[in-house]
Protein backbone atom coordinates (compact mmCIF):
# COMPACT_ATOMS: atom_id res chain seq x y z
CA UNK A 1 0.00 0.00 0.00
CA UNK A 2 2.68 2.45 1.10
CA UNK A 3 4.92 1.41 -1.80
CA UNK A 4 1.97 1.93 -4.13
CA UNK A 5 1.14 5.45 -3.09
CA UNK A 6 4.80 6.35 -3.25
CA UNK A 7 5.08 4.96 -6.77
CA UNK A 8 1.96 6.84 -7.84
CA UNK A 9 3.44 9.95 -6.29
CA UNK A 10 6.59 9.60 -8.38
CA UNK A 11 4.72 8.93 -11.61
CA UNK A 12 2.25 11.78 -11.22
CA UNK A 13 5.01 14.20 -10.24
CA UNK A 14 7.24 13.29 -13.17
CA UNK A 15 4.31 13.32 -15.58
CA UNK A 16 3.25 16.72 -14.32
CA UNK A 17 6.75 18.12 -14.71
CA UNK A 18 7.17 16.67 -18.21
CA UNK A 19 4.04 18.36 -19.54
CA UNK A 20 4.68 21.72 -17.91
CA UNK A 21 5.89 23.28 -21.22
CA UNK A 22 2.55 22.29 -22.76
CA UNK A 23 0.59 24.86 -20.82
CA UNK A 24 3.37 27.25 -19.82
CA UNK A 25 3.99 28.60 -23.33
CA UNK A 26 4.71 32.16 -22.26
CA UNK A 27 8.54 32.54 -22.23
CA UNK A 28 8.27 34.76 -19.18
CA UNK A 29 6.80 31.97 -17.06
CA UNK A 30 8.98 29.35 -18.70
CA UNK A 31 12.01 31.31 -17.55
CA UNK A 32 10.54 31.57 -14.08
CA UNK A 33 9.94 27.81 -13.97
CA UNK A 34 13.51 27.10 -15.02
CA UNK A 35 14.93 29.54 -12.48
CA UNK A 36 12.73 27.96 -9.82
CA UNK A 37 14.16 24.59 -10.72
CA UNK A 38 17.71 25.90 -10.44
CA UNK A 39 16.95 27.53 -7.11
CA UNK A 40 15.47 24.27 -5.84
CA UNK A 41 18.78 22.55 -6.57
CA UNK A 42 20.68 25.40 -4.91
CA UNK A 43 18.42 25.62 -1.87
CA UNK A 44 18.38 21.84 -1.49
CA UNK A 45 22.16 21.90 -1.34
CA UNK A 46 22.13 24.66 1.22
CA UNK A 47 19.56 22.65 3.22
CA UNK A 48 21.92 19.69 3.13
CA UNK A 49 24.77 21.82 4.46
CA UNK A 50 22.53 23.32 7.13
CA UNK A 51 21.32 19.89 8.21
CA UNK A 52 24.73 19.42 9.86
CA UNK A 53 24.29 22.67 11.79
CA UNK A 54 26.51 24.75 9.52
CA UNK A 55 25.52 27.64 7.28
CA UNK A 56 27.38 28.53 4.11
CA UNK A 57 27.16 32.17 3.04
CA UNK A 58 29.33 31.23 0.07
CA UNK A 59 26.61 29.20 -1.59
CA UNK A 60 25.99 31.85 -4.22
CA UNK A 61 29.75 32.16 -4.54
CA UNK A 62 29.98 28.47 -5.50
CA UNK A 63 27.16 29.01 -7.96
CA UNK A 64 29.37 31.76 -9.40
CA UNK A 65 32.51 29.62 -9.32
CA UNK A 66 30.68 27.06 -11.42
CA UNK A 67 29.37 29.69 -13.81
CA UNK A 68 32.73 31.36 -14.35
CA UNK A 69 34.71 28.12 -14.59
CA UNK A 70 32.43 26.72 -17.25
CA UNK A 71 32.20 30.03 -19.13
CA UNK A 72 35.95 30.47 -19.24
CA UNK A 73 36.56 26.85 -20.23
CA UNK A 74 34.09 27.16 -23.10
CA UNK A 75 34.97 30.67 -24.30
CA UNK A 76 38.71 30.75 -23.69
CA UNK A 77 39.72 27.13 -24.25
CA UNK A 78 36.90 26.11 -26.57
CA UNK A 79 36.00 23.15 -24.37
CA UNK A 80 32.59 21.60 -25.05
CA UNK A 81 29.87 22.50 -22.54
CA UNK A 82 29.32 18.85 -21.80
CA UNK A 83 32.89 18.57 -20.55
CA UNK A 84 32.92 21.99 -18.91
CA UNK A 85 29.83 21.09 -16.87
CA UNK A 86 31.39 18.29 -14.82
CA UNK A 87 34.70 20.12 -14.66
CA UNK A 88 33.09 23.17 -13.10
CA UNK A 89 31.41 20.87 -10.60
CA UNK A 90 34.80 19.39 -9.82
CA UNK A 91 36.38 22.81 -9.30
CA UNK A 92 33.55 23.73 -6.95
CA UNK A 93 34.05 20.55 -4.96
CA UNK A 94 37.80 21.11 -4.69
CA UNK A 95 37.40 24.70 -3.51
CA UNK A 96 34.75 23.54 -1.03
CA UNK A 97 37.01 20.93 0.49
CA UNK A 98 39.91 23.39 0.67
CA UNK A 99 37.77 25.81 2.62
CA UNK A 100 35.83 23.22 4.60
CA UNK A 101 38.68 21.10 5.85
CA UNK A 102 40.33 23.66 8.13
CA UNK A 103 37.18 25.53 9.15
CA UNK A 104 34.49 22.93 9.79
CA UNK A 105 36.23 21.46 12.80
CA UNK A 106 35.54 24.65 14.74
CA UNK A 107 32.48 25.25 16.86
CA UNK A 108 30.65 28.53 16.78
CA UNK A 109 30.21 31.12 14.04
CA UNK A 110 33.62 30.60 12.47
CA UNK A 111 32.45 28.62 9.50
CA UNK A 112 29.80 31.02 8.33
CA UNK A 113 32.12 33.95 8.90
CA UNK A 114 34.71 32.22 6.72
CA UNK A 115 32.16 31.62 4.00
CA UNK A 116 31.06 35.26 4.21
CA UNK A 117 34.62 36.41 3.70
CA UNK A 118 35.18 33.90 0.91
CA UNK A 119 32.15 35.24 -0.94
CA UNK A 120 33.37 38.82 -0.56
CA UNK A 121 36.88 37.92 -1.71
CA UNK A 122 35.47 36.20 -4.78
CA UNK A 123 33.50 39.34 -5.64
CA UNK A 124 36.55 41.60 -5.23
CA UNK A 125 38.62 39.14 -7.22
CA UNK A 126 36.17 38.99 -10.12
CA UNK A 127 35.52 42.73 -10.25
CA UNK A 128 39.22 43.55 -10.11
CA UNK A 129 40.37 41.32 -12.95
CA UNK A 130 38.76 42.97 -15.96
CA UNK A 131 40.94 41.44 -18.62
CA UNK A 132 40.32 37.85 -17.63
CA UNK A 133 37.01 37.77 -15.76
CA UNK A 134 35.46 40.79 -17.45
CA UNK A 135 35.30 42.85 -14.27
CA UNK A 136 31.85 43.62 -12.90
CA UNK A 137 30.50 44.37 -16.37
CA UNK A 138 30.56 40.58 -16.58
CA UNK A 139 30.86 38.32 -19.62
CA UNK A 140 28.28 38.68 -22.41
CA UNK A 141 27.14 36.36 -25.21
CA UNK A 142 28.18 33.07 -23.65
CA UNK A 143 27.67 30.31 -26.25
CA UNK A 144 24.81 27.90 -25.70
CA UNK A 145 25.58 24.19 -25.14
CA UNK A 146 26.54 22.42 -28.35
CA UNK A 147 24.04 19.98 -29.80
CA UNK A 148 23.94 16.36 -28.63
CA UNK A 149 23.72 13.72 -31.35
CA UNK A 150 21.96 10.45 -30.62
CA UNK A 151 21.90 8.33 -33.76
CA UNK A 152 20.50 10.53 -36.50
CA UNK A 153 18.48 12.97 -34.44
CA UNK A 154 20.12 15.76 -32.45
CA UNK A 155 19.08 17.98 -29.55
CA UNK A 156 20.13 21.59 -30.03
CA UNK A 157 19.95 24.39 -27.47
CA UNK A 158 19.04 27.64 -29.25
CA UNK A 159 18.59 30.68 -26.99
CA UNK A 160 15.63 30.24 -24.64
CA UNK A 161 14.53 26.94 -26.21
CA UNK A 162 12.37 24.54 -24.21
CA UNK A 163 15.20 22.03 -24.21
CA UNK A 164 16.82 24.03 -21.44
CA UNK A 165 13.80 23.17 -19.35
CA UNK A 166 14.25 19.46 -19.94
CA UNK A 167 17.99 19.71 -19.29
CA UNK A 168 17.21 21.50 -16.03
CA UNK A 169 14.65 18.80 -15.24
CA UNK A 170 17.26 16.08 -15.58
CA UNK A 171 19.51 17.95 -13.19
CA UNK A 172 16.60 18.51 -10.84
CA UNK A 173 15.67 14.82 -10.76
CA UNK A 174 19.24 13.72 -10.15
CA UNK A 175 19.90 16.21 -7.39
CA UNK A 176 16.51 15.67 -5.73
CA UNK A 177 17.20 11.93 -5.78
CA UNK A 178 20.55 12.57 -4.09
CA UNK A 179 19.07 14.98 -1.56
CA UNK A 180 16.19 12.71 -0.58
CA UNK A 181 18.34 9.61 -0.35
CA UNK A 182 20.86 11.44 1.82
CA UNK A 183 18.07 12.86 3.97
CA UNK A 184 16.06 9.66 4.40
CA UNK A 185 19.00 7.31 4.83
CA UNK A 186 21.20 6.92 7.89
CA UNK A 187 23.28 9.79 6.52
CA UNK A 188 20.45 12.22 7.19
CA UNK A 189 19.86 10.74 10.62
CA UNK A 190 23.51 11.21 11.53
CA UNK A 191 23.56 14.75 10.15
CA UNK A 192 20.63 15.76 12.31
CA UNK A 193 22.33 14.00 15.22
CA UNK A 194 25.49 16.00 14.60
CA UNK A 195 23.41 19.18 14.47
CA UNK A 196 21.55 18.33 17.67
CA UNK A 197 24.58 17.32 19.76
CA UNK A 198 28.01 16.96 18.22
CA UNK A 199 29.83 15.63 21.29
CA UNK A 200 27.22 12.95 21.94
CA UNK A 201 27.44 11.83 18.33
CA UNK A 202 31.21 11.67 18.64
CA UNK A 203 30.99 9.58 21.80
CA UNK A 204 28.90 7.14 19.76
CA UNK A 205 31.72 6.84 17.24
CA UNK A 206 30.54 9.32 14.61
CA UNK A 207 33.29 11.17 12.77
CA UNK A 208 31.49 14.51 12.92
CA UNK A 209 34.02 16.31 10.74
CA UNK A 210 33.56 13.82 7.93
CA UNK A 211 29.81 14.36 7.77
CA UNK A 212 30.00 18.15 7.90
CA UNK A 213 32.60 18.15 5.14
CA UNK A 214 30.69 15.68 2.97
CA UNK A 215 27.51 17.74 3.22
CA UNK A 216 29.37 20.96 2.43
CA UNK A 217 31.23 19.50 -0.54
CA UNK A 218 28.17 17.81 -2.05
CA UNK A 219 26.07 20.95 -1.64
CA UNK A 220 28.74 23.18 -3.15
CA UNK A 221 29.37 20.76 -5.99
CA UNK A 222 25.74 20.83 -7.06
CA UNK A 223 25.69 24.61 -6.72
CA UNK A 224 28.65 24.80 -9.11
CA UNK A 225 26.89 22.54 -11.59
CA UNK A 226 23.86 24.81 -11.46
CA UNK A 227 26.20 27.73 -12.09
CA UNK A 228 27.58 26.11 -15.20
CA UNK A 229 24.11 25.47 -16.63
CA UNK A 230 22.91 28.93 -15.61
CA UNK A 231 25.79 30.68 -17.40
CA UNK A 232 25.03 29.01 -20.73
CA UNK A 233 21.30 29.44 -20.30
CA UNK A 234 21.26 33.19 -19.63
CA UNK A 235 24.35 33.83 -21.84
CA UNK A 236 25.46 36.60 -19.48
CA UNK A 237 27.11 36.47 -16.07
CA UNK A 238 28.55 39.11 -13.79
CA UNK A 239 29.75 39.12 -10.18
CA UNK A 240 26.44 40.76 -9.28
CA UNK A 241 24.68 37.41 -9.62
CA UNK A 242 26.71 35.71 -6.95
CA UNK A 243 26.94 38.07 -3.99
CA UNK A 244 26.28 37.74 -0.28
CA UNK A 245 22.71 38.96 -0.86
CA UNK A 246 21.97 36.07 -3.20
CA UNK A 247 23.18 33.63 -0.55
CA UNK A 248 20.99 35.37 1.99
CA UNK A 249 17.95 35.03 -0.25
CA UNK A 250 18.60 31.30 -0.70
CA UNK A 251 19.00 31.03 3.05
CA UNK A 252 15.67 32.77 3.61
CA UNK A 253 14.02 30.40 1.13
CA UNK A 254 15.33 27.37 3.01
CA UNK A 255 14.50 28.73 6.44
CA UNK A 256 10.98 29.78 5.54
CA UNK A 257 10.26 26.48 3.81
CA UNK A 258 11.76 24.54 6.67
CA UNK A 259 15.29 23.17 6.93
CA UNK A 260 14.21 19.92 8.58
CA UNK A 261 13.70 18.39 5.15
CA UNK A 262 14.44 18.88 1.45
CA UNK A 263 10.72 19.18 0.82
CA UNK A 264 10.71 22.23 3.06
CA UNK A 265 13.45 23.84 1.01
CA UNK A 266 11.50 23.12 -2.20
CA UNK A 267 8.37 24.68 -0.79
CA UNK A 268 10.33 27.73 0.34
CA UNK A 269 11.84 28.25 -3.09
CA UNK A 270 8.59 27.87 -5.01
CA UNK A 271 6.70 30.07 -2.59
CA UNK A 272 9.19 32.93 -2.69
CA UNK A 273 9.96 32.86 -6.42
CA UNK A 274 6.30 32.73 -7.41
CA UNK A 275 5.13 35.26 -4.86
CA UNK A 276 7.87 37.79 -5.61
CA UNK A 277 6.98 37.54 -9.31
CA UNK A 278 3.25 37.96 -8.70
CA UNK A 279 3.71 40.90 -6.34
CA UNK A 280 6.17 42.88 -8.43
CA UNK A 281 4.58 46.25 -7.76
CA UNK A 282 5.07 45.80 -4.01
CA UNK A 283 8.77 45.01 -4.41
CA UNK A 284 9.74 47.85 -2.09
CA UNK A 285 8.21 45.94 0.83
CA UNK A 286 10.02 42.73 -0.07
CA UNK A 287 12.90 43.24 2.33
CA UNK A 288 10.69 43.98 5.33
CA UNK A 289 8.60 40.90 4.58
CA UNK A 290 11.74 38.75 4.41
CA UNK A 291 12.90 40.24 7.68
CA UNK A 292 9.60 39.60 9.42
CA UNK A 293 9.54 36.07 8.04
CA UNK A 294 13.04 35.36 9.38
CA UNK A 295 12.17 36.61 12.84
CA UNK A 296 8.82 34.83 13.02
CA UNK A 297 10.16 31.52 11.73
CA UNK A 298 13.13 31.37 14.08
CA UNK A 299 11.10 32.63 16.99
CA UNK A 300 7.91 30.58 16.61
CA UNK A 301 8.28 27.91 13.92
CA UNK A 302 11.89 26.74 13.65
CA UNK A 303 10.68 23.95 11.40
CA UNK A 304 9.39 26.39 8.81
CA UNK A 305 6.21 26.11 6.79
CA UNK A 306 6.58 22.45 5.93
CA UNK A 307 6.89 21.54 9.59
CA UNK A 308 3.72 23.49 10.38
CA UNK A 309 1.94 21.70 7.52
CA UNK A 310 3.13 18.33 8.91
CA UNK A 311 1.99 19.18 12.43
CA UNK A 312 -1.36 20.28 11.01
CA UNK A 313 -1.76 16.98 9.12
CA UNK A 314 -0.86 14.87 12.14
CA UNK A 315 -3.25 16.88 14.29
CA UNK A 316 -6.00 16.21 11.75
CA UNK A 317 -5.09 12.50 11.89
CA UNK A 318 -5.22 12.28 15.66
CA UNK A 319 -8.45 14.26 15.62
CA UNK A 320 -9.99 11.84 13.12
CA UNK A 321 -8.71 8.95 15.24
CA UNK A 322 -10.35 10.37 18.34
CA UNK A 323 -13.59 10.95 16.45
CA UNK A 324 -13.67 7.41 15.09
Amino acid at each position, binding site marked *: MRKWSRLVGYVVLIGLLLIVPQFVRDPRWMHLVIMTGLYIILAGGLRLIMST*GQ*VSFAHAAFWGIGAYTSTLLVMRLGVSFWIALPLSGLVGAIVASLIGY*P*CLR*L*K*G*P*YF*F*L*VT*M*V*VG*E*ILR*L*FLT*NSVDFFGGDAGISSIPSPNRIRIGNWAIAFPYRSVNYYYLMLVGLFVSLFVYYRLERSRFGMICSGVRADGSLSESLGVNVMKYKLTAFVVGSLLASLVGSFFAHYTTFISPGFFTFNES*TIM*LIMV*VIGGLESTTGAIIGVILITVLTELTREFS*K*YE*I*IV*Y*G*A*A*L*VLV*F*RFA*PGGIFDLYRKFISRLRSHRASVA
Partner: protein
Amino acid sequence: MSFLIFSQTFVNALLLSLIYVLVAMGLTLILSIMSMINFAHGELYMFGGFGVYVILQRFGYNYWLGVLVGVLIAVLAGVLLERTVFRPLRKELLPASFAALGVGMILQTVALMIFGPLDKDVPTVFPGVINISGVFIPMEKLVIVLGSLAVIGAIIVFVNYFRAGQALQAVAQDSEAAALMGININRINALGFGIGCGLAAVAGGLIAPLYYVSPYMGMSPLLKAFNVIIIGGLGSIPGAVLGSFLLGFIDQFSLTYLGYVGNIVGFLLILLFLLFRPRGLLGREIQMH
Protein backbone atom coordinates in the same frame (compact mmCIF):
# COMPACT_ATOMS: atom_id res chain seq x y z
CA MET B 1 58.26 64.30 1.89
CA SER B 2 57.77 60.56 1.99
CA PHE B 3 58.16 60.84 5.73
CA LEU B 4 55.34 63.35 5.69
CA ILE B 5 53.17 60.85 3.80
CA PHE B 6 54.12 58.20 6.30
CA SER B 7 53.30 60.29 9.32
CA GLN B 8 50.02 61.48 7.77
CA THR B 9 49.11 57.88 7.00
CA PHE B 10 50.07 56.91 10.52
CA VAL B 11 47.78 59.55 11.99
CA ASN B 12 44.97 58.58 9.61
CA ALA B 13 45.42 54.95 10.61
CA LEU B 14 45.23 55.90 14.27
CA LEU B 15 42.00 57.83 13.73
CA LEU B 16 40.46 55.09 11.58
CA SER B 17 41.39 52.40 14.12
CA LEU B 18 39.59 54.23 16.88
CA ILE B 19 36.53 54.60 14.66
CA TYR B 20 36.63 50.83 14.11
CA VAL B 21 36.89 50.25 17.86
CA LEU B 22 33.77 52.31 18.37
CA VAL B 23 31.76 50.17 15.95
CA ALA B 24 33.21 46.78 16.84
CA MET B 25 32.87 47.13 20.62
CA GLY B 26 29.11 46.63 20.83
CA LEU B 27 29.13 43.80 18.33
CA THR B 28 31.72 41.82 20.27
CA LEU B 29 30.02 42.54 23.60
CA ILE B 30 26.75 41.08 22.38
CA LEU B 31 28.58 38.17 20.81
CA SER B 32 30.33 37.34 24.08
CA ILE B 33 27.15 37.46 26.15
CA MET B 34 24.48 36.06 23.86
CA SER B 35 26.89 34.10 21.63
CA MET B 36 25.11 35.47 18.57
CA ILE B 37 26.27 37.65 15.68
CA ASN B 38 24.10 40.76 15.81
CA PHE B 39 23.43 41.36 12.13
CA ALA B 40 21.20 44.27 13.17
CA HIS B 41 24.21 46.15 14.53
CA GLY B 42 24.44 48.27 11.40
CA GLU B 43 20.84 49.40 11.79
CA LEU B 44 21.36 50.30 15.44
CA TYR B 45 24.38 52.29 14.31
CA MET B 46 21.94 54.01 11.97
CA PHE B 47 19.76 54.93 14.99
CA GLY B 48 22.57 57.10 16.29
CA GLY B 49 22.98 58.74 12.92
CA PHE B 50 19.31 59.58 12.54
CA GLY B 51 19.12 60.70 16.15
CA VAL B 52 21.69 63.36 15.35
CA TYR B 53 20.08 64.15 12.01
CA VAL B 54 16.62 64.70 13.42
CA ILE B 55 17.58 66.60 16.56
CA LEU B 56 20.35 68.70 15.03
CA GLN B 57 19.31 69.13 11.41
CA ARG B 58 15.53 69.06 11.58
CA PHE B 59 14.97 70.74 14.96
CA GLY B 60 18.28 72.53 15.34
CA TYR B 61 18.91 71.43 18.93
CA ASN B 62 22.28 70.55 20.41
CA TYR B 63 24.38 67.86 18.74
CA TRP B 64 25.07 65.91 21.92
CA LEU B 65 21.36 65.85 22.68
CA GLY B 66 20.92 64.18 19.30
CA VAL B 67 23.51 61.54 20.14
CA LEU B 68 21.87 60.98 23.51
CA VAL B 69 18.41 60.56 22.01
CA GLY B 70 19.71 58.14 19.41
CA VAL B 71 21.49 56.10 22.07
CA LEU B 72 18.49 56.00 24.39
CA ILE B 73 16.22 54.80 21.60
CA ALA B 74 18.77 52.18 20.61
CA VAL B 75 19.12 50.94 24.19
CA LEU B 76 15.36 50.72 24.57
CA ALA B 77 15.07 48.92 21.26
CA GLY B 78 17.84 46.59 22.37
CA VAL B 79 16.21 45.67 25.65
CA LEU B 80 12.87 45.23 23.93
CA LEU B 81 14.37 43.01 21.23
CA GLU B 82 16.22 40.89 23.77
CA ARG B 83 13.00 40.35 25.67
CA THR B 84 10.79 39.59 22.68
CA VAL B 85 13.04 37.96 20.11
CA PHE B 86 16.42 36.88 21.38
CA ARG B 87 15.85 35.61 24.92
CA PRO B 88 14.28 32.33 23.81
CA LEU B 89 17.06 31.89 21.25
CA ARG B 90 19.87 32.34 23.75
CA LYS B 91 23.03 30.35 23.04
CA GLU B 92 21.55 29.19 19.74
CA LEU B 93 24.03 30.84 17.45
CA LEU B 94 22.43 30.45 14.04
CA PRO B 95 18.75 31.04 14.89
CA ALA B 96 19.62 34.09 16.97
CA SER B 97 21.96 35.51 14.34
CA PHE B 98 19.45 35.11 11.54
CA ALA B 99 16.63 36.50 13.63
CA ALA B 100 18.97 39.48 14.09
CA LEU B 101 19.43 39.62 10.32
CA GLY B 102 15.66 39.78 9.99
CA VAL B 103 15.38 42.50 12.62
CA GLY B 104 18.00 44.47 10.72
CA MET B 105 16.02 44.16 7.49
CA ILE B 106 12.89 45.39 9.23
CA LEU B 107 14.58 48.36 10.90
CA GLN B 108 16.25 49.33 7.64
CA THR B 109 13.02 49.31 5.66
CA VAL B 110 11.21 51.25 8.36
CA ALA B 111 13.93 53.90 8.28
CA LEU B 112 13.62 53.91 4.50
CA MET B 113 9.89 54.54 4.73
CA ILE B 114 10.29 57.34 7.27
CA PHE B 115 13.32 59.17 5.86
CA GLY B 116 13.43 58.11 2.21
CA PRO B 117 16.43 56.70 0.36
CA LEU B 118 18.33 59.96 -0.18
CA ASP B 119 21.49 60.59 1.82
CA LYS B 120 20.97 63.15 4.57
CA ASP B 121 23.74 65.58 5.40
CA VAL B 122 24.72 66.38 8.95
CA PRO B 123 26.51 69.74 9.28
CA THR B 124 30.06 69.74 10.55
CA VAL B 125 29.74 70.17 14.29
CA PHE B 126 33.42 70.70 15.07
CA PRO B 127 34.93 72.59 12.14
CA GLY B 128 38.59 73.30 11.73
CA VAL B 129 41.74 71.29 11.17
CA ILE B 130 44.82 71.00 13.36
CA ASN B 131 48.03 71.25 11.36
CA ILE B 132 51.14 69.79 13.02
CA SER B 133 53.97 70.65 10.63
CA GLY B 134 52.19 69.37 7.55
CA VAL B 135 50.26 66.56 9.26
CA PHE B 136 46.56 67.39 9.32
CA ILE B 137 44.08 66.24 11.95
CA PRO B 138 40.45 67.24 11.34
CA MET B 139 38.80 68.56 14.49
CA GLU B 140 35.71 66.37 14.29
CA LYS B 141 37.80 63.23 13.93
CA LEU B 142 39.65 64.25 17.05
CA VAL B 143 36.30 64.49 18.83
CA ILE B 144 35.40 61.00 17.64
CA VAL B 145 38.73 59.70 18.88
CA LEU B 146 38.12 61.22 22.28
CA GLY B 147 34.62 59.79 22.29
CA SER B 148 35.94 56.40 21.34
CA LEU B 149 38.59 56.50 24.04
CA ALA B 150 35.96 57.58 26.54
CA VAL B 151 33.77 54.65 25.53
CA ILE B 152 36.62 52.16 25.85
CA GLY B 153 37.45 53.60 29.27
CA ALA B 154 33.84 53.50 30.38
CA ILE B 155 33.46 49.87 29.29
CA ILE B 156 36.65 48.82 31.08
CA VAL B 157 35.61 50.60 34.27
CA PHE B 158 32.07 49.26 34.08
CA VAL B 159 33.09 45.67 33.44
CA ASN B 160 35.73 45.62 36.17
CA TYR B 161 34.47 47.87 38.96
CA PHE B 162 30.67 47.61 38.85
CA ARG B 163 28.67 44.68 40.16
CA ALA B 164 26.55 44.54 37.02
CA GLY B 165 29.68 44.73 34.91
CA GLN B 166 31.29 41.87 36.78
CA ALA B 167 28.09 39.88 36.43
CA LEU B 168 28.22 40.65 32.72
CA GLN B 169 31.73 39.25 32.59
CA ALA B 170 30.73 36.16 34.55
CA VAL B 171 27.85 35.47 32.16
CA ALA B 172 30.12 35.97 29.19
CA GLN B 173 32.57 33.41 30.58
CA ASP B 174 30.10 30.74 31.68
CA SER B 175 26.43 31.53 32.01
CA GLU B 176 25.61 28.24 33.77
CA ALA B 177 28.18 28.90 36.48
CA ALA B 178 26.98 32.48 36.71
CA ALA B 179 23.43 31.26 37.16
CA LEU B 180 24.62 28.99 39.99
CA MET B 181 26.27 32.02 41.57
CA GLY B 182 22.78 33.48 41.73
CA ILE B 183 23.09 35.99 38.91
CA ASN B 184 19.83 36.77 37.14
CA ILE B 185 20.86 35.72 33.64
CA ASN B 186 17.84 37.28 31.96
CA ARG B 187 18.45 40.69 33.45
CA ILE B 188 22.15 40.56 32.65
CA ASN B 189 21.48 39.51 29.06
CA ALA B 190 18.98 42.33 28.60
CA LEU B 191 21.52 44.72 30.10
CA GLY B 192 24.33 43.44 27.90
CA PHE B 193 22.23 43.54 24.74
CA GLY B 194 21.00 47.01 25.58
CA ILE B 195 24.54 48.28 26.17
CA GLY B 196 25.70 46.65 22.94
CA CYS B 197 22.99 48.39 20.95
CA GLY B 198 23.70 51.64 22.77
CA LEU B 199 27.36 51.40 21.76
CA ALA B 200 26.35 50.92 18.15
CA ALA B 201 24.21 54.08 18.35
CA VAL B 202 27.04 56.01 20.03
CA ALA B 203 29.26 55.08 17.13
CA GLY B 204 26.62 56.11 14.62
CA GLY B 205 25.99 59.40 16.36
CA LEU B 206 29.65 60.32 16.63
CA ILE B 207 30.52 59.30 13.08
CA ALA B 208 27.42 60.82 11.42
CA PRO B 209 28.85 64.35 11.00
CA LEU B 210 31.92 62.82 9.37
CA TYR B 211 29.97 61.16 6.57
CA TYR B 212 26.25 61.30 5.83
CA VAL B 213 23.12 59.65 7.19
CA SER B 214 21.02 57.15 5.25
CA PRO B 215 19.09 53.93 5.90
CA TYR B 216 22.06 52.05 4.45
CA MET B 217 24.77 53.86 6.39
CA GLY B 218 25.24 50.81 8.64
CA MET B 219 26.29 48.37 5.97
CA SER B 220 29.98 49.04 5.47
CA PRO B 221 30.77 49.79 9.14
CA LEU B 222 29.17 46.45 10.04
CA LEU B 223 31.32 44.60 7.53
CA LYS B 224 34.41 46.29 8.97
CA ALA B 225 33.30 45.41 12.48
CA PHE B 226 32.99 41.76 11.45
CA ASN B 227 36.51 41.76 10.14
CA VAL B 228 37.75 43.48 13.27
CA ILE B 229 36.25 40.92 15.64
CA ILE B 230 37.40 38.04 13.47
CA ILE B 231 40.96 39.30 13.75
CA GLY B 232 40.69 40.35 17.38
CA GLY B 233 38.96 37.20 18.52
CA LEU B 234 35.23 36.62 18.68
CA GLY B 235 33.65 37.86 21.86
CA SER B 236 36.79 39.40 23.33
CA ILE B 237 36.63 43.12 24.10
CA PRO B 238 40.40 43.68 24.33
CA GLY B 239 40.58 41.61 21.17
CA ALA B 240 38.19 44.02 19.46
CA VAL B 241 40.44 46.94 20.37
CA LEU B 242 43.56 45.13 19.19
CA GLY B 243 41.85 43.97 16.02
CA SER B 244 40.66 47.48 15.24
CA PHE B 245 44.18 48.81 15.41
CA LEU B 246 45.62 45.98 13.35
CA LEU B 247 42.97 46.31 10.66
CA GLY B 248 42.95 50.11 10.77
CA PHE B 249 46.68 50.28 10.15
CA ILE B 250 46.69 47.55 7.54
CA ASP B 251 43.82 49.20 5.65
CA GLN B 252 45.41 52.64 5.70
CA PHE B 253 48.93 51.59 4.82
CA SER B 254 48.01 49.03 2.18
CA LEU B 255 45.69 51.53 0.48
CA THR B 256 48.22 54.35 0.70
CA TYR B 257 51.18 52.36 -0.52
CA LEU B 258 49.55 49.81 -2.85
CA GLY B 259 46.60 51.79 -4.21
CA TYR B 260 43.26 50.14 -4.94
CA VAL B 261 44.87 46.67 -4.85
CA GLY B 262 45.05 47.33 -1.12
CA ASN B 263 41.31 46.73 -0.94
CA ILE B 264 41.88 43.02 -1.16
CA VAL B 265 44.77 42.87 1.31
CA GLY B 266 42.57 43.28 4.39
CA PHE B 267 40.29 40.48 3.27
CA LEU B 268 43.16 38.13 2.52
CA LEU B 269 44.52 38.81 5.98
CA ILE B 270 41.15 37.90 7.46
CA LEU B 271 40.95 34.73 5.42
CA LEU B 272 44.42 33.74 6.63
CA PHE B 273 43.35 34.41 10.20
CA LEU B 274 40.20 32.32 9.81
CA LEU B 275 42.13 29.46 8.25
CA PHE B 276 45.16 29.39 10.53
CA ARG B 277 44.21 31.17 13.73
CA PRO B 278 40.43 31.08 13.71
CA ARG B 279 40.21 32.08 17.35
CA GLY B 280 41.72 35.42 16.39
CA LEU B 281 44.31 37.23 18.48
CA LEU B 282 42.65 37.08 21.89
CA GLY B 283 39.59 34.95 21.18
CA ARG B 284 38.29 31.89 22.93
CA GLU B 285 35.83 29.38 21.53
CA ILE B 286 32.31 30.53 22.26
CA GLN B 287 30.16 28.33 24.47
CA MET B 288 27.24 26.78 22.63
CA HIS B 289 24.08 25.34 24.16
